[in-house]
């Protein structure tokens, strides 16, 4: 069973929608710089979506009670379904709502909503919390709203696996196509910046000082190649393999990079696609500026690929966006397959030939890891 990606939607600091994103992606000089989250001395740097306003795409009706995460996820879903040609003027074309599902990742839910209600409970009284805001505190609410706005009814699978969740959703998508739970799946995730996350990172101090926080949402539309062919859709990428693994440890620390888990995930994803490591052209890794984790991930890539493969860090562009990170990296790979080479600031990528096979990796903070292999479609796909 061959799975392909036929479109994507993205809401990011580099742009909203594939076209704006791809234009910005190619020119590092246009990328908005990171800024301190607040005036506090220990405030972390953040890369937020500047002046985020979804109304040009979603209208202004019904947005008032939605939080930032929900708006980003809903918008990314809408843009993805449109980009894949599944929806025109809000109506599905050639596929039923009952056959379309979501697999979405998010690590922290709406901390903004939880913090707001906790604040009311502490400063005033719990009996004064706003009931219309309460549903936003539930972890799957953003994904639930996305299904309502876009009328997605086959399934809605939410996953939380830290910064590996965005790639894990592709593992789930493979699983659900194998067990035939949908004809089309929008696969990705979202994470919103909030005061709580910034304060927490500020408080963690030196541990995370070199990590820039980010946010965003992205969905890739995945379907069987045969389904895409039937409806005349053009694949952007083929999914060769996806794997998620864990490295058990006896360490007392909760935060542990597992090189073993990442190595296993890469081998598994490549083996599924029947490709050797030598066939990987580019690696999009999960390096975020956290020294111990970046070194561990680089060691894995060096051990497996030597100097033969160029390794890039999409988080250089987006910041660390946890549950959204893998999804934003996938969008970067898809843009590249479309001939829009990302500019990572070192100027090298633009001159590199368009890759045929991209490996995406996520090294989790708790011993978890994930890998995904995408290939630019050949003519016969």
């Amino acid at each position, binding site marked *: 069973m061959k799975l392909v990606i036929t479109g994507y939607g993205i809401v990011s600091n580099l742009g909203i929608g594939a076209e704006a994103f791809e234009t910005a992606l190619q020119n590092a000089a246009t990328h908005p710089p990171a800024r301190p989250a607040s005036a506090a001395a220990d405030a972390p740097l953040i890369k937020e979506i500047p002046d985020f306003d979804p109304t040009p795409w979603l209208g202004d009706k019904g947005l008032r009670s939605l939080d930032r995460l929900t708006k980003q996820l809903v918008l990314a879903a809408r843009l993805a379904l449109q980009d894949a040609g599944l929806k025109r003027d809000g109506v599905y074309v050639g596929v039923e709502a009952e056959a379309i599902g979501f697999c979405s990742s998010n690590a922290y839910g709406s901390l903004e909503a939880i913090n707001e209600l906790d604040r009311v409970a502490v400063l005033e009284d719990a009996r004064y*919390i706003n009931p219309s805001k309460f549903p936003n505190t539930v972890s799957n609410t953003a994904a639930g709203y996305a*299904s309502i706005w876009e009328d997605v009814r086959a399934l809605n*699978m939410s996953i939380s696996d830290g910064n590996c969740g965005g790639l894990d959703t592709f593992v789930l998508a493979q699983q659900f196509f194998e067990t035939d739970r949908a004809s089309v799946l929008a696969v990705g995730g979202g994470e919103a910046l909030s005061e*709580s996350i910034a304060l927490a990172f500020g*408080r963690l101090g030196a541990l995370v000082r070199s990590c820039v926080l980010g946010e965003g949402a992205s969905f890739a539309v995945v379907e069987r190649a045969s389904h895409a062919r039937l409806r005349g859709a053009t694949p952007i990428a083929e999914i060769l393999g996806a794997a998620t*693994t864990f490295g058990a440890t006896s360490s007392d620390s909760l935060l542990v990079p597992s090189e073993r888990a990442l190595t296993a995930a890469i081998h598994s994803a490549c083996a599924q696609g029947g490709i050797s490591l030598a066939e990987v052209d580019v690696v999009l890794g999960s390096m975020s500026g956290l020294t111990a984790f970046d070194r561990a991930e680089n060691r894995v890539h060096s051990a497996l690929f030597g100097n033969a493969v160029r390794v890039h860090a999409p988080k250089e562009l987006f910041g660390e966006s946890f549950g959204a990170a893998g999804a934003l990296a996938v969008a970067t790979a898809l843009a590249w397959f479309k001939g829009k080479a990302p500019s990572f600031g070192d100027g090298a990528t633009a001159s590199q030939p368009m890759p045929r096979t991209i490996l995406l990796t996520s090294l989790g903070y708790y011993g978890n890891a994930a890998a995904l292999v995408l290939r630019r479609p050949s003519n016969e796909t």
Partner: protein
Amino acid sequence: MQTAAKVNRSRVLVTGVGVFSPIGSGKEAFYSALAAGKSGAAEVTQFSTENLGRSIACEVKDFRASDHLSGAELRRMGRCSAMALAAARMALTEAGLHENRWQDRSRVAVILGTTMGEADVLEKLDQALVRSGPQALQRSHLTRVGSTLLPIHIARAIGAEGPTMTLPAACAAGNYAIGLAYDLIRTGKADVVIAGASELIQQLQFSGFVRLAAMAPSKCQPFDKNRQGILIGEGSAVFVLESEGHAAKRGAAFQAEVGGFGLTCDAYHITRPHPDASGSVAAMRRAIAEAGVQAGDIDFVNAHGTGTKANDTAETAVMHEVFGGRRVPISSMKSMFGHCMGAASALEAAACLFTIESGIYPPTIHYETPDSECDVAVVANVAQRGPHRIVANNSLAFGGYNAVTIFAQPGVLVPPSERPHAFFSARASGSEAPR
């Protein structure tokens, strides 16, 4: 096109269960309480309910984390994870499996459901932040936030190295976890999956449901004409699911087979089920079809049964639509142990195992006045005995999530290779397929 033999490679067997619930912890105590129709409702002890207008919930009173976890483990996790890990250990013990002694640890997965995960950790951080500012945030607590951590703690403790995921699927999360575990095993991706769900009571959630006017004053009365809503609960239920080959190789006894999983989304309202219950109906039909049986083969339905107007009428519609004129016995465990949110359908799955083993349908307690809008065969107030070959576990959730799992006595279902496996793909190619 997938073949049946490729998709349905193995039966999925339940070989162990661990439970912490408001009506009893450990399988024996839980099963006894189910048979007796015990209520877990009482005054909340974990936080003040003063001025909230409601004060009753279903807490797990007999859980002490230090009885089950090491000092290092206690330092790393909050109460929700602790309860999940303790339940996982209980399940492993019953299954006769041992931590860190796996033949191939990469084929052992951990899938946990929850709604809010370590909500107590986050609540403490928020309170410290509001009262005393960022400097009051304890660094050790910051790294413990996030529902991601539930399966991570279990995987670390037992030495599992397969897929490790949290499914935050609100009130259907337990069924989501069991269903995904079933998919992973039957498609040959894992030999053993530790699957289940965990949830705890905390003040924000309690207050939120009161403010939504969804909370009953003292008792939960599913399907009753005078039902007034939910009672919040907490708990954890974790299962050992194994492939038939893995279980047979080690001579493991098994309690039931997981035979089907149905998954749909309403796309209707964030907190209410669709009134025509079409999504929920489709989930139930899919789960039954996957098991290779007909609706007429289902002996008992363990209801979602929250005790709200909207849920119970929607669930009634499911019963009528799926089972027609046949009045299949149905009962809501939430009348006894409250609505345990993410853990609800996992605890209810444990109740399904009880029914499969014993032939006892646990009662819906506090059922006093029949409701013509909930014209279903409620197992009212006292447990009943009946056929118990195949039972369905129904769940609905925030966001319009619907999930159904099917449990069967060992040996009742046809071999996996003979069960339907093509649904959407068959429709696309124009051939017949059950829906």
